[in-house]
């Protein structure tokens, strides 16, 4: 396949590239930011990237089955649950230290 076609014909690979890019951005956010809430948001970003992969594979490889879509359903549920608990923790940290720095998580005992 000649290289020029890579950009001209959007296929499964393009969705996977996009997903990889979004995942990396989310990972950078987790590693570089200090704010707990931004870190949580970056995790949501990574989960979204994974969802794109699921849907893209589902569409291109098994267009008549729905395993990928059901998986995305579950991933979304887990992501929302994680956000709910994560934010509850972040709010606790904020109430104690008036700041939501990831550093303060080590002081949470009992």
């Amino acid at each position: 396949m000649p290289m020029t076609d890579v950009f001209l014909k959007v296929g499964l690979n393009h969705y996977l590239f996009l997903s990889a890019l979004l995942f990396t951005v989310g990972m950078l956010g987790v590693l570089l930011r200090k704010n707990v809430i931004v870190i949580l948001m970056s995790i949501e970003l990574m989960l979204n990237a994974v969802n794109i992969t699921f849907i893209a594979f589902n569409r291109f490889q098994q267009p008549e089955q729905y395993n990928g879509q059901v998986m995305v359903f579950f991933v979304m549920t887990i992501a929302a649950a994680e956000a709910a608990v994560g934010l509850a923790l972040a709010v606790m940290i904020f109430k104690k230290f008036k700041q939501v720095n990831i550093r303060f998580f080590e002081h949470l005992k009992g």
Partner: protein
Amino acid sequence: MLALSDYIFYFLAFTAFFSACSVILVQNPIYSALFLASTMVAVAAIFVSLDAGFVAGVQLIVYAGAVMVLFVMVLMLFDLKHDLDAFSPGILSGAFKLASVGVILGLIMGSIYMSADMVFNSQVTPIPATLDPVRGLATTLFGNYLFAFEVIGALLLVIAIGAVTLSRVRGGTHAND
């Protein structure tokens, strides 16, 4: 030539990527949350273009409509506008983190590229019109994945109780309980 659907993909992909980058680069977390919401909407649009309309709707309702509203609400309630040193300190560790992320990105991209021949062949096959996507999704969900579905129900119950209990730990407005 680029087909119309390719233009749509590039537009949505660019929107998603640009707002994703803004999420981690913007100093004010409220802007981060709003940018993340726009990423979610762009991803939902990508889902629609991949013929997963129901999942796209769920993405809008759950992610863009519920989770991000929660984020924005928390940020506004607690007035977290001042986030002066947004990034973790340390040049060396920062460089190390960047490098490791770069390596991972390279690995992912490489593996996608290496398998290009394998997946490039999979061209878009139109979904037969007789198939109702939501029906198929439901049949799969309540067929093969029934156990996972019930477990999700139990998990949500645990989360609901856990979140309320967490917010009650001393120091909150519920201190008098």
